[in-house]
């Protein structure tokens, strides 16, 4: 292709030149004697580094106590140590040119940090202190709790939040994955001892993974890490419970009434798979063709042809124990039924007709190209490494990703669509002003109606 003759007219699309190989920067993968797993990669574009200290325990492991406890633990952990007050921590970060954030999802807790390499030693010292010597001051806890309550009240007016909340509840029921945030009342009952307990049990080297990418020499950085974290002790922690999931009998419709909405948030989904499943890449590719890219069928149909929505997207969401597939779009109130019809039309087309070679080629190129783009920044690299290492995927997972994608066939896509775009058991969540949309919703099944507080009203 490289030597294809050039046209003098501007009308011909230039061919692609031969691709330059994607070269993986060397990586160091070690486990310290205390069990802390460390992954280091050099990236010298800017004199900085970025890091993430993960604990393989999140909100799910303590869901029986209350939702969101791991997240609250991570939030308050940054507000005081045996050696530093909250204000000192923030001012020290600024002095080092560093950013730091902490939080937790269902499966993991994380302290994320980035800073200038000149201060790497000091920043690692601070992160190590937050991981080992946080003291959970009562007044900081009370302030964060009030901020969380106010944040929850605002989330209950946010269509995207309400849609995710209902979809996850419907797909996962009483399983910890079925609850994405605590209620106000649950937050009011949080006790600082619960945070300290979570911290004791799960913030330990045997349960941790440290990923760092940046402008450093790995062996030297490893020595700094050894100094900062070497004396820390604590073995592995127990995993999260995995209670039974609800049986999804058929397609169901759930309407969340948000009075005054001038648009309707649609969220359609079904349970799918984790990243460890052998079908994961097949599903990723099928999703990319369906609604995972700008150039996907869903975007072409309900945005570029019909103008129903600005931001339609589908995604496969892997978690540690389970996964789900979802489709989202915020649409004009008067096209709720029409948009749903097209969403299911495109699903059924994916499930019934094999994808042609051109479209397949395009989608494979898209996935492999975007993967390469994601390696060009420190944050992007760190994200990829974390993905592969956190879930203990094979060592060559990232290196072989592109060639494995390129081997996928039209039959793979059809197979994944039939298995995981489960049209028959799709759960349909519709968030909007009931009076404007209920009749349209009812075309897809008798809706269960909820208010924005999550209570069933019909």
């Amino acid at each position, binding site marked *: 292709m490289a030597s294809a003759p050039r046209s003098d007219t501007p009308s011909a699309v230039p061919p692609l030149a031969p691709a330059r190989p994607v070269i993986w920067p060397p990586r160091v993968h070690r486990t310290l004697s205390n069990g802390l797993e460390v992954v280091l990669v050099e990236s010298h574009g*800017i004199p900085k580094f970025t890091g993430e200290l993960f604990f393989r325990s999140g909100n799910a492991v303590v869901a029986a106590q209350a939702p969101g406890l791991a997240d609250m633990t991570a939030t308050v952990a940054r507000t005081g140590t045996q050696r530093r007050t909250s204000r000192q921590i923030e001012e020290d970060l600024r002095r080092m040119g560093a950013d730091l954030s902490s939080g937790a999802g269902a499966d993991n807790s994380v302290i994320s940090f980035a800073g200038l390499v000149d201060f790497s030693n000091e920043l690692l010292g601070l992160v190590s202190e937050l991981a080992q010597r946080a003291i959970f001051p009562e007044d900081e806890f009370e302030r964060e709790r009030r901020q969380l309550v106010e944040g929850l009240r605002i989330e209950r007016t946010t269509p995207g939040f309400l849609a995710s909340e209902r979809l996850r509840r419907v797909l996962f029921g009483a399983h910890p994955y079925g609850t994405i945030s605590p209620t106000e009342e649950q937050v009011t009952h949080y006790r600082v001892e619960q945070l300290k307990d979570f911290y004791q049990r799960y913030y330990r080297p045997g349960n941790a993974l440290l990923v760092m990418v940046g402008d450093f020499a790995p062996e030297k950085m490893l020595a700094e890490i050894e100094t900062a974290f070497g004396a820390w002790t604590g073995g592995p922690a127990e995993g999260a419970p995995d209670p039974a999931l609800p049986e999804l009998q058929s397609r169901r419709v759930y309407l969340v009434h948000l009075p005054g*909405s001038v648009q309707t948030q649609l969220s359609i989904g079904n349970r799918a798979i984790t990243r460890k499943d052998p079908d994961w890449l097949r599903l990723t590719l099928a999703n990319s063709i369906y609604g995972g890219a700008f150039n996907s069928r869903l975007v072409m149909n309900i945005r570029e042809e019909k103008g129903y929505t600005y931001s339609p997207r589908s995604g496969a969401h892997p978690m540690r124990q389970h996964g789900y597939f979802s489709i989202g779009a915020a649409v*004009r109130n008067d096209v709720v039924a029409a948009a749903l019809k097209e969403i299911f039309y495109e699903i059924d087309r994916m499930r019934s007709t094999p994808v042609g070679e051109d479209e397949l080629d395009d989608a494979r190129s*898209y996935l492999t190209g975007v993967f390469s783009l994601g390696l060009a920044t*420190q944050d992007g690299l760190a994200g990829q490494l974390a993905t592969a290492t956190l879930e203990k995927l094979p060592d060559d997972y990232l290196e072989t990703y592109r060639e494995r994608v390129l081997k996928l066939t039209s039959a793979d896509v059809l197979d994944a669509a039939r298995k995981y775009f489960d049209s028959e058991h799709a759960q349909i969540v519709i968030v909007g002003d009931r009076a404007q949309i209920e009749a349209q919703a009812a075309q897809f099944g008798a809706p269960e109606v909820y208010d924005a507080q999550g209570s069933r009203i019909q």
Partner: protein
Amino acid sequence: MTQLNIPVESMALPNGLRVVISPDRTAPVATVGVYYNIGFRIEPRGRSGFAHLFEHMMFQGSANAGKMMHIKLVNSSGGVLNGSTHYDVTNYYESVPSNALERVLWLEADRMRALKVDDENLRNQRDVVKEEVRVNVLNQPYGGFPWLDLPPVAYRNWSNAHNFYGDFDDLDAANLDDVQKFFKTYYAPSNAVLLILGDVDTDEAIGLAERHFASIPSGPQPTPADIDEPPQIDERRGVVEEKFGTLPGIAIGYQAPRRLTPEWYAAAMLDHAFHGGRSGRVYRRLVLEQQIAVDAEGGIHYPVGDLFDYNGPTLMVTRLLHKPEYSADQTIAAYDQILDEMKEKGIAADELEPIKVKFRSNYFSNLEGGHGPSIPRYGLMHLLACFTLFDNEPSLVNTILDGFMQVTPSEVQSVAQKLLTRHNRSIVIRQPAKKGAA
């Protein structure tokens, strides 16, 4: 201090198109941008929102690449693309594996040469844009707060004060004539800069730019629009109803200095002292210590722009969400105390020096990424574009930090005294609607 030495080559084609190249062959990826010197500030009267609607039209088809071809050709080459409309520029950009570089340049040249769109495309994108406005503004708590709320209060010149996302009546009134006229007026090569970053040789990049862009006919340079503001003499206030959110919000904006002036460098440090995250004075005092507010953010040209990407009047903004048990007046009084302290006592070197370290650190991160994990060097591209279009000096990207690093404590105090006055500010209150029985 690390002296920056980012390679920057620049030139102009005979048709006036400026070209800026910054090679870096570490990874086999390239980022391409075309920036036009037109933003929503100077869209035509009676056509609010048009610059942004027009940006959507640039994806609807050009002379040799019909509707969807831009998106399809970039995605299927393994790349991503988008565009965005700002106060004073509109950009179109792609990040791709570098073997698709020429294809991307061809696409950008094709739509700089001729836009080929019809009524159906316009109707379609008008609908899409309305849903964009709904999902980002009309159907979200604190939608548009304060980026759409402050300008009509703070400014007197329509260019600076109007609804940048567009009144729906104005979007409906836009027609194909408007589209072609806007294209002809503002999308001439001489009103644009092409940026090529990443895995390419400078000579190769220049050759590609010439091959694809040199034959695009030049057009007249648009006459500069009047975006001047009369001097502000009184505090200005406005109230906007918050339809969904539960907390009252307050946005305060001070007229900021012109870019690249000595006061601007000092104001950037002042801004960081106030709004630099959890260690900034506003967050620390109002959220962490006094606990009047539950959130506090801000910045110069915040929140839809930054210190560098405007070329006319703008504000240094503080955005607060506060507890309902405090009144707006109480909250503003607590905020004023923070400002008064700065004006009276200034800033110590041991506060200013860490701010400089953090500022420099943020600048580096922005150069490398600045726009999510899939668009390497977006931040570098954005700076190069603004320094070219506004200042005709892309190499400022390597030297601009010096000006910030030289700011002294007394300069920060002086600029605080000059800027942070009642008559130089505008305040918008977002008042939650009274809820009836649910």
